[in-house]
């Protein structure tokens, strides 16, 4: 299972966990699995059309998925996935 780094504002939804293990062949599947594990997460990450919101970046290891294959970017067990929201010292996702 890939390791997903949870940004501070979403930790309320993950019971405070900063890192969670999630199963999924690609980012889209991984986010669905995450939402089943922690309901409400996807509403914070995805817009009405199912795209990643424009003030949030998702990285697989060091690379932003926009530079890879977006939500179809494959994920393997050893990968680290980071969710990085825009922050402004308090004003955050």
């Amino acid at each position, binding site marked *: 299972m890939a390791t997903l*780094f949870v940004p501070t504002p979403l930790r309320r939804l993950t019971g405070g966990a900063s890192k969670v293990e999630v199963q999924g062949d690609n980012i889209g599947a991984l986010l669905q699995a995450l939402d089943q594990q922690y309901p409400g997460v996807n509403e914070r990450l995805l817009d009405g059309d199912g795209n990643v919101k424009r003030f949030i*970046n998702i*990285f697989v290891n060091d690379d932003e998925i926009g530079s890879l294959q977006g939500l179809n970017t494959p994920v393997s067990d050893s990968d680290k996935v*980071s969710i990085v929201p*825009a922050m402004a*010292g308090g*004003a955050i996702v």
Partner: protein
Amino acid sequence: MSRLNRDQLVALAKSQIIEWSPQELKQHLDAGEKLTVVDIRERDEFVQGHLPSSTFIPRGHLELQIEQHQQDREAPVVIYCAGGVRSALAARNLQEMGYENVISLIGGFNGWKNAGYDFKIPTVLTEDQRIRYSRHTILSELGEAGQIKLLESKVLLIGAGGLGSPAAIYLAAAGVGTLGIVDFDTVDVSNLQRQILHGNKDVGRPKVESARDRIHDMNPDVKVIGHMEPITSANALDIIKDYDIVLNGSDNFPTRYLVNDACQFLGKPLVDASIFMFEGQVTVYDPNDANSPCYRCLYPDPPPPGEVPSCAEGGVLGVLPGIVGSLQAVEAIKMLAGIGEPLIGRLLMIDTLDMSFRTLKVRKNPECPVCGEHPTVTELIDYEQFCGLPSSVAHPNGQTTERELVLA
């Protein structure tokens, strides 16, 4: 071993080395040749004037320091003193180290000057400054030249709050000559948990004033320019244009987009950082680097208002801005002195709870409305409106009320 007197030794040295006249050196320099030119005189001679592109290494340190400036034993190294004698003797010492193309300047600096060629009278540190910044100048990456660059530099801090406090304190201590501070807020007791520019005695005072006092107490070399006004589309370009680098310590999205756009339009590097609870982000946007992204490449749109917990709600560990603001100061100093690799195209994520530092790659967006290939935003806009907030409104008395800018 043969016994030589002074003149015999000099004659022997000159027979073993190459010598150039000032005219020859000038021709080589004018032809654009890459020469390492070293002034080996004493400090008091060097500060009276030296060749424009020379490096100062006094004779006593020559063999010990030359490799820091030229390691290639085949590269030409020109050394000069005042009259061409000391440099002839020193040239032999470099030959002993394997330097194959050591040239001594005939007539030395005096010969150069008398030939009517340009020379430079350097800016030098005062005696007090040499002591104050000695731990900097001993770093070969900085040296006296790097310290002088810092003293001649101007950095603008957006906010004298959580991030701006440690950044300002370290930049001031480091001898950055001019610090501009944009902040129209006054000191509140609840700021003191993290805003180390200010103290108990400052509660109720304008932050730019207590910042100025604290900075001058640390380092009287630093000139502080207070901008006690909100930064807006109307004044941003005017405020930022006189500075070399901007450090962003604001905690609201309209100001972040405004400062980003203004820095892009003016070609000013922006050291951006933000903090929340136990987490921080730091990166550098440099419009002078064709591959550098900007804030809008990373975050094309702001989060809609209401979707975000407020600053007061979320809270922040007081030490966190200390780490993040200090990192901003490091990045500013590196860029001002031209050393190291700036955090361009890399986003440093800091989580103090598990104490992890991760660096993620961020790319320039070719479609970016500000720094992309076909920009659509070419002047400052209404950033409150862009962020979905009510725009600034004009009061009947003509004054403008801005949305309160609460600094981290």
